[in-house]
């Protein structure tokens, strides 16, 4: 039934409003962002972009904001050898935990306002008090990977809002690594990364989010100029609710974007990857490939939407989501969506869900490999197919190991 009901604020929404009120004296952009959030409220299944993920249900209360009175801070895990670490502790840049910046990279704490339709991203803009802005000079290739490490100080569960913007000048090249550690809380974490790629710029982005028992929403917004190239890969695991959402706009002709990811869920975890790729100019290429492995009662979500604007002719888009369910209680929801307004394009999408292939397990068994090992082999290969496609080979061992560790602990659970 389609009843209209006016809805009172949930406890979490009321709590957020009170917290925002208490901050006081904020600039117009942040107030506008909060007003946008307040109007929409926390997203739930009635919001089409959040159809499979009920954030309202997952947030009972608004946890206290992570402040400056921080407890001890752990060290960020090394994802790529030789990376330059830029640490944000409780959402604020911490030089003490960071390395010196490599050449051609400038840092400031000023980010422009960014329009968004997503209420959770608007909430991030409202609460992120210390946005960080990195600038890569035009025409320069940064030789050291830049590792943006989100750290949470130990102590009570808290709410963390962090916002980072990276501008990659025309023709520049950079490898960005993003991670969040110390996630056992349960915290409420809202991270945003905004990428602006100038013409011919090249950016490789590698993210690792292990959300433990926290609620974590990570938003990646990217705008690509002509011939710009973005390759983003994310490893997602754990999470009372973990959502990675991406909003990519190919604004210039001939942009090239690849969005890949591996999702590993078990227990009652809920892991969601949602993306919108907008082809706004012609000759763009987009590739989205995701692999999901679900055990226990975990829920996996993949929502992808490729929009081809009128006149974005010769667009080439392909989207693929594959999921393996290891348990009869796991749930996978797929929604690969296409919206096409131009007639000379090639767009395809595919989605599969299923159990591991019995034939393949039998093949292994016939060669003396026991079922648990055979499953491990097949699952590792399933994920490695994407991991090995990483343009930065130095990140492959860490990501592959992440899958191996997850599979090993699965075996422990089984025994």
């Amino acid at each position, binding site marked *: 039934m*389609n*009843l209209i009901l006016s809805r009172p604020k949930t406890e979490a929404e009321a709590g957020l409003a009170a917290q925002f009120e208490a901050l006081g004296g904020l600039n117009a952009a942040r107030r506008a962002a909060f007003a946008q959030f307040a109007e929409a409220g926390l997203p739930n299944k009635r919001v089409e972009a959040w159809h499979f993920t009920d954030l309202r249900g997952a947030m009972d209360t608004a946890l206290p904001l992570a402040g400056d009175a921080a407890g001890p801070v752990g060290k960020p895990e090394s994802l790529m050898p030789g990376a330059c670490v830029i640490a944000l502790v409780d959402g604020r840049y911490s030089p003490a935990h960071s390395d010196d910046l490599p050449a051609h990279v400038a840092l400031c704490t000023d980010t422009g306002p960014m329009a968004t339709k997503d209420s959770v991203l608007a909430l991030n803009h409202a609460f992120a008090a210390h946005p960080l802005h990195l600038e890569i000079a035009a025409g320069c290739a940064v030789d050291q990977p830049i590792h943006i490490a989100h750290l949470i100080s130990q102590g009570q569960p808290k709410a963390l809002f962090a916002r980072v913007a990276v501008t990659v000048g025309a023709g520049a090249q950079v490898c960005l690594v993003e991670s969040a550690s110390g996630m056992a809380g349960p915290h409420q974490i809202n991270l945003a990364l905004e990428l602006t790629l100038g013409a011919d710029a090249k950016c490789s982005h590698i993210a690792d989010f292990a959300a433990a028992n926290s609620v974590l929403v990570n938003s990646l917004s990217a705008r690509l100029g002509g011939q710009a190239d973005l390759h983003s890969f994310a490893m997602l695991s754990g999470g009372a609710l973990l959502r990675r959402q991406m909003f990519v706009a190919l604004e210039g002709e001939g942009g090239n974007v690849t969005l890949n990811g591996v999702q590993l869920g078990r227990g009652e975890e809920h892991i969601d990857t949602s993306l919108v790729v907008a082809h706004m100019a012609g000759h763009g290429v987009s590739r989205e490939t995701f692999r999901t492995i679900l055990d226990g009662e975990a829920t996996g979500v993949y929502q992808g939407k490729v929009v081809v604007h009128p006149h974005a002719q010769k667009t080439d888009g392909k989207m693929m989501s594959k999921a393996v369910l290891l348990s009869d209680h796991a749930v996978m929801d*797929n929604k690969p969506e296409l*919206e096409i307004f131009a007639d000379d394009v090639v767009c*395809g999408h*595919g989605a599969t869900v299923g159990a591991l292939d019995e034939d393949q397990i039998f093949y292994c068994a016939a060669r003396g490999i026991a079922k648990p090992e055979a499953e491990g082999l097949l699952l590792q290969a399933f994920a490695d197919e994407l991991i090995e496609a990483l343009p930065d080979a130095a990140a492959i061992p860490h990501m592959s190991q992440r899958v191996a560790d997850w599979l090993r602990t699965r075996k422990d659970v089984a025994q």
Partner: protein
Amino acid sequence: MAAVQETVEKVRAIDVSEYKYGFTTDLEMEMAPRGLSEDIVRFISAKKGEPEWLLAWRLDAYRRWLTMVEPTWARVEHDKIDYQNLYYYAAPKSAIGPKTLAEVDPEILRMYDKLGIPLLEQEILAGVQERRVAVDAVIDSVSVVTTFKAELAKAGVIFCPISEAVHSHPELVKKYLGSVVPVTDNYFATLNSAVFSDGSFVYIPPGVRCPMELSTYFRINEQNTGQFERTLIIADKGAYVSYLEGCTAPKRDENQLHAAVVELIALDDAEIKYSTVQNWYPGDANGKGGIYNFVTKRGDCRGARAKISWTQVETGSAITWKYPSCILRGDDSRGEFYSIAISNGRQQVDSGTKMIHLGKNTTSRIISKGISAGHSQNTYRGLVSAHRKATGARNFTNCDSLLIGENCGAHTVPYLEAKNASAQFEHEATTSKISEDQLFYCQQRGIGAEEATALIVNGFVRDVLQQLPMEFAVEAQKLIAISLEGSVG
């Protein structure tokens, strides 16, 4: 790759400006007062001399409808529908009362003749028509005639207007009406439950294979009317029926509402094949006029090994909002959905299907082709879901869209929800991924990959279309040759 010339020409041939069925027929009509209220609901019920329980059912639906709001999630845009500005009952005066073929108004017969639907049995028997099809002819709110009733009755098949079935077979109607599409289902289905006028009722007894194709031909004739027909088809254990539905309307400047409900029930081992050629008036090239086709169609495979198959060719309507669905409740039951939706001019199509797997080892297949030209928008929206207990559920979905011209849009919104590990869902739109074995077979024989793909899929679609009866063949034939070349997911 852009569409090939051959396809462009074929689609142009069925453009909105070429609408053949736009003539009007002057019939003396009996109408209910304009608007919708409890009195109108009572009026319709009284007109059909309905029993008390059905009136109560209608009134309950009407009261619920008042509390609901029109859904807005579909990718269609239209001016707000003024539900008080419609006539909810319109019947040709000559059609009222009992009727045999001899008593049917010759004007109505001429109208059906013009539409290419012969109603005269002797003509059909004399071999003027190659295939024998029993027809239920519905104009606006009433059924005017049903052919071959006697012959069908010999086989035990009940085929009559639903308004008649309410009196002749109340136990069946009472048992099954609203059991697949409940009164509360959605805004338009609830509206239909309150004001439904006529439609067909089919019951195939156990073990009977219906001796001929059954069909209903819907015609909206009167101005400012809405048509709200209700179709109920029950195939008892082991029965088989093939049912066809056709629809046209005159060219008029205002939009007319068509909100039908179709319910199919297949018991153990039964099979229902439901085919539609939807050719309502689509409006003119500027989007003026045309039918709003907001239809709820659903089949329930209630028994084990039941099978329901939907085939639709959608070329008409200003707006189409329709999702023929299958509830696969019985173990080993099967649902199929084959659709070709062509939009032109300013048409908007938001169509697709739902395959809801509840029973064990249930299988479903979805083949959908959308072709949009002119300034039209064509959306495929589909759901495939496997319930926790639906072990061994299998689905294969393939949807292709083709755009012709720069001002149209094609959209795909598939939902795949798997709640158990043994469910296997495949959704594909990339032409290179149709059965690798078949492709390999063709390639081995020197047929290129693309050519082979077109061969396989066209061969498959042709198979389906060729099972449509003669009167639908004209439209269908135009679509068969449409090439896959240049199609996008």
